[in-house]
């Protein structure tokens, strides 16, 4: 499942943007959004989702359960 950003909590600090290995995060009107098609949950890149690890506001980058879990293509 990709991650999403809860816009009302985002400080717009941009820390997540440069950490995402898939360039899935971009700015939209002062806050940041994740493109669910690009997010791989950081699987295969890092041990933890980078947006979650760097975000200063806890529970702002969260799993978007409306999508299926990301599968590493074999």
């Amino acid at each position, binding site marked *: 499942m990709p991650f999403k950003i809860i816009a009302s909590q985002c400080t717009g600090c*941009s*820390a997540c943007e440069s950490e995402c290995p898939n360039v899935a995060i971009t700015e939209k009107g002062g806050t940041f959004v994740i493109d669910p098609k690009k997010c791989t949950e950081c699987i295969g890149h890092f041990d*933890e989702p*980078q947006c979650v*690890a*760097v975000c200063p506001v806890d529970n702002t980058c969260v799993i978007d359960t409306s999508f299926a879990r990301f599968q590493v293509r074999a």
Partner: protein
Amino acid sequence: MDAPTQQEASSIGNEIGEITQLNAVQMRCGRNSGGGTTGCGSPAGRGDIPAETWEKVKNHPCYSEQAHHHYARMHVGVAPACNIQCNYCNRKYDCTNESRPGVVSERLTPEQAARKVMAVASTVPQMTVVGIAGPGDPLANPEKTFKTFELIREVAPDLKLCMSTNGLALPDHIDTIKKLNVDHVTITINMVDPEIGAKIYPWIFYKHKRYTGIQAAKILNDRQLQGVEMLAKLGILCKINSVMIPGINDQHLIEVNKAVKWRGAFLHNIVPLISSPEHGTVFGLRGQRGPTPGELKALHDSCEGDMHMMRHCRQCRADAVGLLGEDRRAEFTTEKIMQMDVKYDVESRKIYQSNIEEERSAKTIAERADLTKCADDDSDIKVLVAVATKGSGLINEHFGHAKEFQVYELSTSGVKFVGHRPVDVYCQGGYAEERNLGTIIRSINDCHAVFIAKIGGCPRAELIGAGVEPVDLYAYEPIDKSTSAWFEAYLDRVNSGAIKHIELGDPAICRSTLISAA
């Protein structure tokens, strides 16, 4: 970096080359090569900074207690991301009504920032220093930070560049910092003991992982100290900022002071924690208090001697523009600078600044001649006095209009600057704010006198009642000279038995006033 909150913001520091060697000079009395040194003391404004370093910082408003009357600095906020979390920082907080250290209301792109710098520098010829501090860490945003510096360097080679960082990423970027000829780097170091660090930093983000607790604090501190050493080796001035947090690192900062000093930092700026619940920081919500002015002064005094201490930091907003204590940022909003016709003229700036220098040195010589009088009295009485000033080293503010008081310690060894006390203005638009009078008096009631250009009858009576003597005899005269003259007379009065010297206690400063103090 850390700019954002308090600390950083303020001043961005830095410096020097053969630091180890210089420190050796610094520790020994009478070896200041600069000439004009009076015994163990130091020439006005220079403190115990070695001569070579002084050359580099004398025109820096944040380092030289004198220069800040003459030179201006500006900060540009281009680096909002951060790689650590501090318990005194809330990065959610950033609104235009809020004026508190470290806060910026405008986030600029490197191109906008460079344009703003040019606009300010061509309007304000005293502007000599451009800093990147918070909110965020300049080195957690290396592309934006370095791009901004590059753009400024192209057009304005005469401006000094500085940055404030939490130090976590510093060792990785040291070569670029050197290449861009950054003058000063300030690192905020609040501990050298990871157990203490764990109480200040809930986490850090390092090498793609979030670390917490003691492990996080240990990595952070190792990287910070490594950064100090690397800067010293490259001859880049390194200043340390520390936030004094009572009950957590207050006593420990003496150790921090030693640790950074021998590694080559040239200046230590200990700033008080500013915390109130409205800021929504962890410390604010937990009710962690900041230090009282007396506690801060005691800590400064106990670190003094080990290293030059900075005492005049005002914990500026991260986007402050202009002379310290005079924020002109409203004149330079993005909208306004885009319309300004900007011409950067290095030559005319140089001429302007050399005029400032002439005036300054003439003034220093005159002041020194005036200051030798007290020296044969051997009283060990020390008193604090507050001064209402708009700058230029003069007593030139009305009591009712003062937004802050400068506090000096007077003794037979001279006049020593102790710090700023921001207050809520007593007279607003012609009406006296009676409510504020009590807080103002409480915030300076460790002072034996307050020097003002003018004062009304009612506050005069209340000050006298509180044991603070209002002195308007020296209106529009230089601070050093006037306070020494008053002190000499004070000692005479004590010696003749006309008055009895009493020690005063710690004032109850209202922290909220600090917040609105630009």
